[in-house]
Every structure is written in structure tokens, then in C-alpha cells.
């Protein structure tokens, strides 16, 4: 299964090689054109080269991880995070170090040996280290060097009711959605972009958008979801099982209203469940894409991921398939009516100041709300 292979592949920001390799292998038979750029972004073009709106679909390949920054004389490895990791989740987790996947564990002082006061504080990164079983620094250096990355060693597994757990669903689930769409035939010039370095500041997507300069960009993310006990309702952001989440606003982007309402309308017409992504926190590649060149019409669709950025993340597989279904429906609509893109891109121009002409009323597309009653709807 592709989601399993993508989840288990190693791809910290800047070191996305394994993930890129899986995607190249998987999509080669379906691509009209396939290439990479100076940062390592992977571009897969399908459909006709021209005719109809040029749509860029983007998902990031990279994941949060660790980097070895020092090898102790005792053979233990000190590390720093690549991307945003909550250090409280690190202790007692297995990892794989470097391209050769050397197994290691993240150790710490045993609870018996800690003073009562120490037990009250979470471990900080300075107190943690990776143990690969080396007798001393010299032996460790035979296997590992400074600058090697370490990723969580989590097996992909399906469990519960249509749930899957694994590492790096943020954003391998998006990569898998894109790959499934790339295998389907559309009479549209599509560019699937698997971006690098999202987790360290949305660095790959901007140059990719500059290169492609699409009429429309759709970002597919694994997003925050905290729909569990003791969570405040407003922290939930998304709820698993309610379908793909459409972004209205996040830390880097205010979604174009006309586009979002239209996407919601398409979901409503086709009976595909969807929800709003209910938080201004977090950001994704849309933040870099929508401001590339002279501005690019950009929307974001996300699969809710519980325990994001941790070694064990959880997705609902129905949300995953509904995300594919929604994006397919959106692309089919554009395929049927390519001229829609002009309406979506058009901004009403207000009356000239001082001219006395009233600004045209803001159009309010009449579309249904979320298909399942959300706390916001």
C-alpha cells in the first residue's frame, strides 16, 4: 500500500530522498513529464500540456525529525530537532539513524535515579540522547557521523475502525492523495508538486510556485486534529471522520472566499462530507504559494491527523478517501467547465474613490454548510 510505503520512508526536511524515490517509482508510468529542481522539489506533469486551467497540486514530502550534532565519548548521540518537535514526546522512542537506518533508542535517566523534584519536569532535549549500542565514541563514529538525521521508527498499521497509525502522516497522507490523483486521467494540464522543507518554514513551495506559475494551486495537508478527551472544543481544529477540512484562515494565509465557497459547493453537490478547518493556528505551503510572483489563487484541503508531529500519528482512512474524492470532483468540474477559473480568479473592482459610485455588493454564493453538523455549523 502506497500510504504505508510513504509513511515508513525517511524524509526529514532537506533529506527527502527516500520519499521522492518512492513517488518517482510509483508515478513514472503516469507522468507526461517528471523533473526536480535545485531544492529537490519533485514535479509530475499529467494530462495535456496546454488547454484549460493549469492547476498545481502540492503536498510536502518532508517530516519533522532529529539531527545528530555531537557524538559523546561514551558513544551516545546528541541531537537537535529538524522542524517543530515537542520534546516531551521523545523519551523512550526507537529511532533510525542516517541513510543506513541504524537502529537506536532515545534514552534518559531512569525514574528511580531521579530526585523527586526532577520527576516533575519533562525531559528537555539537552537531557536526552540516542543510544545505538556503541561501546564508545570511536565505535559510534564508525556508524554515524555528525549531520546524520534520525527519524522515528514507527511501523504503519491499521487498527480500530478504519484508522491507521504511523509516522509522518503530516504530510505523507497528502503525498498519497496526490499520487492517487496523478494516476487518474484528467483533460487538464496538471502539475503535481511534491515539495521539500515545509516543516522548516515553507521553503520549498515558493520556488516551485514561481516555476509553475499556475492558474490555481491546491495544497493537500495533514492537519491538526485534537478531538480527544479533555481537549477544549476550540482546540479541536478538525474532527476525524467528518471528511476533508477546508482552510478559511491560518497563520500565513487568508483563503480566497470565492474559491473556498465554490469548493464547499462542489462537495455539497457530490455528497462528499467536508468540514471547516477551525483554527487560525498552524500554516502550510499555501502560505508561500499564494504570494509567489504576482499572487496565485490558492486553496488548502487537509486530512485531519491526530498527534501530529509525534512519532505515532493517526488518520481516519475514510477522511483520506473522501479527500481524494473531493479533489477529484473539483478537478472534474474544472475539466467540464474550464471557464470557471476566470470567475474564481476575478476580483470585483470597487468604485473609484470620490467618484460617488457605490462599491458593488459583495457576492454571497448560496452554498450549503458542512454536511455533518459541526460545532460551528
Amino acid at each position, binding site marked *: 500500500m502506497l500510504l504505508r510505503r510513504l509513511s515508513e520512508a525517511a524524509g526529514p526536511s532537506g533529506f527527502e530522498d527516500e520519499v521522492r524515490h518512492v513517488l518517482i517509482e510509483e508515478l513514472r508510468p503516469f507522468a507526461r513529464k517528471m523533473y*526536480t529542481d*535545485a531544492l529537490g522539489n*519533485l514535479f509530475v506533469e499529467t494530462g495535456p500540456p496546454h488547454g484549460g486551467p493549469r492547476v498545481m497540486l502540492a503536498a510536502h514530502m518532508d517530516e519533522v525529525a532529529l539531527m545528530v550534532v555531537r557524538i559523546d565519548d561514551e558513544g551516545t548521540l546528541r541531537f537537535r530537532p529538524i522542524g517543530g518537535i515537542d520534546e516531551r514526546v521523545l523519551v523512550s522512542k526507537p529511532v533510525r539513524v542516517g541513510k543506513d537506518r541504524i537502529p537506536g533508542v532515545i534514552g534518559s535517566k531512569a525514574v528511580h535515579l531521579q530526585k523527586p523534584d526532577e520527576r516533575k519536569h519533562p525531559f528537555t532535549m539537552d537531557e536526552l540522547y540516542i543510544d545505538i549500542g556503541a561501546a564508545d565514541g570511536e565505535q559510534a563514529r564508525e556508524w554515524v557521523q555528525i549531520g546524520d538525521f534520525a527519524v522515528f521508527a514507527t511501523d504503519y498499521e491499521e487498527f480500530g475502525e478504519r484508522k491507521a497509525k504511523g509516522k509522518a502522516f503530516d504530510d505523507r497522507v497528502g503525498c498519497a492523495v496526490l499520487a492517487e490523483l496523478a494516476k487518474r486521467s484528467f483533460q487538464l494540464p496538471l502539475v503535481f508538486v511534491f515539495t521539500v522543507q515545509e516543516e*522548516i518554514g515553507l*521553503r*520549498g513551495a515558493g*520556488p*516551485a510556485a*514561481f*516555476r509553475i506559475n499556475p492558474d490555481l494551486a491546491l495544497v493537500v495537508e495533514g492537519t491538526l486534529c485534537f478531538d480527544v478527551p479533555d481537549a477544549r472544543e476550540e482546540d479541536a481544529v478538525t474532527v476525524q471522520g467528518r471528511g476533508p477540512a477546508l482552510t478559511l484562515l491560518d497563520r500565513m494565509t487568508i483563503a480566497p472566499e470565492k474559491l473556498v465557497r465554490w469548493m464547499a459547493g462542489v462537495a455539497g453537490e457530490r455528497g462528499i462530507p467536508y468540514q471547516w478547518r477551525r483554527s487560525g493556528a498552524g500554516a502550510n505551503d499555501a502560505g508561500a504559494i499564494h504570494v509567489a510572483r504576482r499572487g496565485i489563487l490558492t486553496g488548502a484541503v487537509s486530512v485531519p491527523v491526530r498527534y501530529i508531529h509525534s512519532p505515532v500519528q493517526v488518520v481516519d482512512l475514510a477522511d483520506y478517501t473522501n479527500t481524494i474524492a473531493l479533489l477529484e470532483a473539483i478537478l472534474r468540474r474544472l475539466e467540464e467547465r474550464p471557464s470557471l477559473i476566470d470567475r474564481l480568479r476575478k476580483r470585483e473592482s470597487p468604485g473609484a474613490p470620490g467618484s460617488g459610485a457605490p462599491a458593488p455588493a459583495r457576492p454571497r454564493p448560496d452554498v450549503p454548510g458542512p454536511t455533518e453538523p459541526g460545532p460551528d455549523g
Partner: protein
Amino acid sequence: MTGWRGVDSFLELLTLEGPSGHEDAVAARLAAWFRAEGLEVERDALGNLFGRLPGEASSPVVLVTAHMDEIGLIISDIESGGFLRVAAIGGVDPRTLPSAEVTVHGRTALAGVVGSKPPHLSTPGERKQAATLDHLFVDIGLPEADVRRLVRPGDAITIRRKPLRLLGEVVAGKSVDNRASVAALFECIRDLAARRPDAGVVFAATVQEEVGVRGAGTAAYRIRPDLAIAVDVCHARSPGVSDERTLRMEGGPAVQFGPNIHPALFRSLTETARAAGVPHQVLVGQGATGTDARILQITREGVPTAALGIPIRYMHTSVETVNYDDIRRTGRLLADWLLGLDRAFVEGLSCFFDV
């Protein structure tokens, strides 16, 4: 006009004043040195200064940057009595400021000192508190009316510090960050006088790095290089500082590694250093580096980018300390590396299919 004369020119460079956004004096001196070394000079709207190695329109085009700005202060207000309130330009540590000597760049350059409440008048509690910028003021010793005539809010203030020569090749002063790297560019240019690279090389002394790597972005957008390299300072080891984040002074240039760096450029730099017998160190990073490379890499469609570091101690103080030998070695490594670049090497840099 004489050209670059090694450590003597470096000492002169450290006397020039150039806080971010106010780099003209530094640029003027560097332009003269570029011309004396036979480079073609241009400047852009932000103030970046470019020096192009002469020759046919060659390929590939390489952009080599070192920022010429330094941290400083700016006058935010004039208090009654003629005391100046200040805000920071870049990452100033206010604790280094009390009783510092400064130059206020008003209608003329004026000497000043950073004043603070004397210990006799402060409470024991106050003395335990670190200085914050709000509580400091600059005293230029003039009556208020003269102050108001000579300076205005918005005028820049720089630390007044004559560079010092310490033992051997060690130099201390203000703005070693990043004039050390500018000096390395000139060492490289001198080295290339006798042996010309095939590549078209553009050296850029960039502006406004200290306030968010701004100049390098417009520089790379203008030049559209096939690849780029940033030279900046990095932290050298000193007592009480973790050796995970620091390098050895006199250990040679640091070749940077991590997501901000194209892996093939990292490899070619370390191989070049080994072949040339230049001692070097590796500096690893987990994200965007705090150098011009941060923006160079993501300009336009993306630029394959590398970064070299020169280890210094006491960064962002007025006694930043560097060993000139490290500067010389950085210039040498850069020159050898530029000589080895050709079209074929650059063409491989966008191919991530077989790695």
C-alpha cells in the same frame, strides 16, 4: 588607489561605520577596492554592491555574498536635557551597552557615551536586573538646543571601537561580523588575479542582513545565478559554551551542511578543501541558516546554495575576535572552489533522481 593589503586593509574595514540600512560609507570604500582589483562595480536600489570579475559573458554564473552591514542603534527620541533614547538595529545585546562609547551620525559625526544610573543610586534589586534598551540613553555632552540642531530621531548610532591586534594573527573589534567575510572575498579576489575561473563570478557585499537577510534576496533576484554561496561568521568555541554549536578558532573555514545547503555543493567544497590542503570544519544546521544563504536558496525558482563560516568569538559585541589566518584560508578555499566550477557540474544540481 591601492588594492587589498591583507590584515591592514581588514583593520581599516573595521573602522568603517555601516549599520543596516546605512551602509553607504562601507560601500564606497569597497567599491574603490573592487575597482582597484579590476572588477566591474554596480549597486542596486537597496544598496547591495556588486563586483564582477571581468571577462566574456561566462557560464555558469556564481554569486558570492558577504553582508557588509553591522548591528547598531537608531535614535528614537530626544529627551529633555538632550539625552538620546535609542532602539536597536539588529540583534543588539543591551547588556553590552552601558558605558560604551558611540558615534552619533547626526549632521556631523558626534562622540557619545551610553549612560546609566550610577550604582550608588540604584537599589540592590535593580543591580541584579540586566540592562534593557528602554532604560539606556546616549549622552553627547551638548546643551539640548545644540542637540536638537545637530541630531534627529532616525539618525544612526554605531559603537566606537578601534580595532585591536591581539597575539599572532588575532584581531578584535566591532563589525568583525561580517567584515571578516568581506575580507575573505578580497583574499579570494587577490588569489584569482593570477588564475581566472571559467565561471562568471559576481561578488556581492549585501545590505540589511542583520535585520532579516533582506539585501541578499534582491541581489540574487537581480543576478539570477546558477549557484550561490554565502560567507558569514559563525561561533568559535569559548569557555562555558557548548561545543555542539561552536567551532575551533584557527580551525579553518566552516563548510555548512543541512537543508539550507545543496548536498552536492557541500561535497564539492569539502573535497576542494581536502585537495588544496586547507584545514576546514563542518557546521551542521537543522533548518534555514542565519545567513544570506537563507534567502539565496529560495529566490525565484530556487538556487543551489552553499555557505562558509569564519569562526569568531563574542559575536554581536564590540570586541568580536577572529584569527586572520581563518579569513585567508576561507578566501583560498573559495578561490579553489570557483576555479573548479563548470557548466557540467551546474547542470547536475537540479537532478534529484539518482540520489
